[in-house]
């Protein structure tokens, strides 16, 4: 039963918040309350999975592989928990940022609809159901992207919608082919039935279609253009939510599908993933270096960081997979925090264009320190969480003597420092172009709290990395040896 709650809570939240959207104050706080409930459900789920191993539930009582199965191993449960953390941070931040009109247009309900889609995607054990949750997430994100209705948002949304719909159709075709090949849609069952058939043409075609679809969702090279075109256009709350969760669902789906259903040691798939990952890292970080807009720099950095995670998957050793999973967790926290800080900085200095900002270190030193924590973590400076994430990936590359990916990973880390120091110099260090009085207002408490909380979490993950790496190790073992997962879904044979 616990498996259903992370989906039902945000769905119920979306419904209630939609019906009550006239009562603005109630809806704001209700949104926070439901996010806290989701976080709580995530904690209980993680606790259950840590104690009992993978758990599964059959929706409507229809036995697997015929019905829709919800299933959680440690990776899914941890992703749900971290979704809850982001949900709480973002809804609290939204208390001040989202205005009454945006609330009336359904912002709060859409946030929870998005969370329902994300949690559903993490928990489902059925590939067509995964498609449905992707669509729930996609529709909600379409709505969130245009709430507010500025020209910029319309422009960004056109590109976001146009490119994501192609990925969706590729996903659907891939699922159709997979059903034609194996006659089942249950992912655990698919894994069993495709054993020894991995080299068949039809299987490879479906694998490449799914790879394209998830790659586009995760913003891999060369299908990432929708991301930097749209992520800087909506409210900061929305772009923090997107940056933390949407691309990660793509990465999660890649990890799940290419370990459970397909084998990674098929040369075609592995080389696409490997070179795709390296190009993603490099192109993303170079794109970021060319930008002069706070949130656009961060958007390009999402792309380059996605490259690291996919690289971990592509190297396909247990050590590399461990790195990818650890990277996934670390990156959600850090990236959401950076976007939230970008919003606070805009509020203080009046702009996100680096040229038009400045003076924040002198005026708001606390915010400056809070920026340094996730920024250094993103760049991989010890002892912050990003260092361990990069260390694990690079170490796995060294073990394989895959010099190309090691060099790419280290070089991209250096260039990340370049972009972060550019933001530091322009936004925080240099004086404001309109004089010191141009920095206005204080950071309101609901904006500051989530930023501080996420920064502390980054520090904790960095300083107590051992605990988190151990947990990620268990998750990796469950991913690479899915017997327990399959048994939870299909029952013991």
């Amino acid at each position, binding site marked *: 039963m616990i498996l259903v709650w992370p989906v039902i809570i945000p769905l119920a939240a979306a419904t209630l918040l939609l019906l009550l959207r006239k009562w603005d104050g109630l809806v704001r706080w209700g949104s926070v309350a439901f996010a806290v409930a989701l976080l709580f459900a995530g904690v209980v789920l993680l606790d259950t999975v840590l104690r009992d191993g993978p758990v599964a539930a059959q929706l409507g009582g229809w036995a697997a592989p015929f019905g829709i199965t919800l299933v959680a191993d440690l990776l899914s449960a941890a992703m749900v928990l971290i979704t809850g953390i982001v949900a709480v941070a973002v809804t609290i931040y939204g208390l001040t940022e989202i205005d009454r009109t945006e609330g009336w247009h359904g912002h709060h309900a859409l946030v929870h609809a998005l969370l329902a889609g994300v949690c559903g995607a993490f928990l489902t054990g059925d590939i*067509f159901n995964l*498609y*449905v949750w992707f*669509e729930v997430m*996609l*529709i909600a994100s*379409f*709505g969130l992207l*245009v709430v507010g*209705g500025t*020209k*910029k*948002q*319309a*422009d*960004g*949304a*056109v*590109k976001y*919608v*146009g490119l994501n*719909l*192609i990925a*969706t*159709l590729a996903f*659907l*075709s891939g*699922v*159709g*082919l997979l*059903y*034609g*090949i194996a006659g089942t849609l249950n992912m655990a069952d698919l894994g069993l039935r495709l054993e020894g058939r991995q080299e068949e043409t039809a299987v490879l075609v479906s694998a490449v279609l799914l790879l394209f679809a998830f790659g586009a969702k995760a913003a891999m090279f060369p299908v990432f253009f929708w991301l*930097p*075109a*749209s992520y*800087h*256009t909506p409210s900061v709350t929305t772009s923090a939510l997107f940056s933390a969760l949407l691309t990660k669902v793509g990465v999660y789906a890649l990890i799940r599908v290419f370990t459970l259903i397909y084998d990674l040691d098929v040369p075609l798939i592995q080389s696409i993933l490997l070179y795709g990952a390296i190009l993603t890292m490099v192109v993303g970080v170079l794109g970021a270096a060319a930008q002069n807009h706070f949130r656009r720099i961060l958007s390009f950095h999402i792309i380059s960081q996605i490259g690291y995670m996919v690289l971990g998957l592509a190297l396909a050793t247990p050590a590399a997979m461990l790195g990818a999973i650890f990277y996934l967790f670390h990156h959600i926290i850090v990236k959401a925090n950076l976007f939230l800080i970008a919003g606070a900085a805009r509020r203080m200095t009046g702009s996100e264009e680096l040229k038009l900002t400045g003076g924040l270190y002198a005026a708001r030193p606390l915010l400056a320190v809070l920026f340094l924590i996730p920024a250094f973590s993103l760049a991989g400076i010890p002892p912050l969480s990003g260092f361990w994430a990069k260390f694990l990936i690079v170490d796995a590359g060294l073990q394989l003597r895959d010099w190309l990916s090691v060099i790419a990973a280290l070089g991209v880390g250096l260039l990340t420092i370049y972009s972060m120091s550019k933001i530091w110099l322009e936004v925080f260090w240099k004086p404001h172009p309109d004089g010191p009085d141009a920095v206005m207002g204080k950071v309101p408490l609901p904006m500051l709290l989530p930023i501080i909380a996420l920064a502390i979490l980054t520090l904790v993950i960095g300083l107590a990395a051992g605990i988190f790496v151990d947990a990620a190790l268990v998750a990796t073992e469950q991913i690479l040896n899915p017997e327990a997962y399959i048994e939870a879904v299909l029952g013991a044979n």
Partner: protein
Amino acid sequence: METVLAMLTGLLVAAGAYLMLSGNLVRYILGLALLSNAANLVIFGAGRLTKANPPLIPEGMKEPLEGAANALPQALILTAIVIGFGLFCFALALAYRAYYALGTARMDSMRIAEPREDS
């Protein structure tokens, strides 16, 4: 029959791609609609084409007739059509709005969110 279906799917994808490459937002969305129909046909074909009875349980019986069709591909297609319906409603509304707001339906001219560096 499978051959005809496969050729039809290919034709739809080709026509969809042609429309999508034209650079006009409305044609792009129409192209997507063709592509989504092609995806539905893929599922239809993948579910095997057979002459069979409708998968309904007649009045007074407990199981479907002998040789009933596999209902699952059709259920999948129906779900995909429903979702596609929602997505395309949104996409069309968005296109209308973007045309209204930006004054153009040519995608090359939509540069408000990503302004040119030299301007």
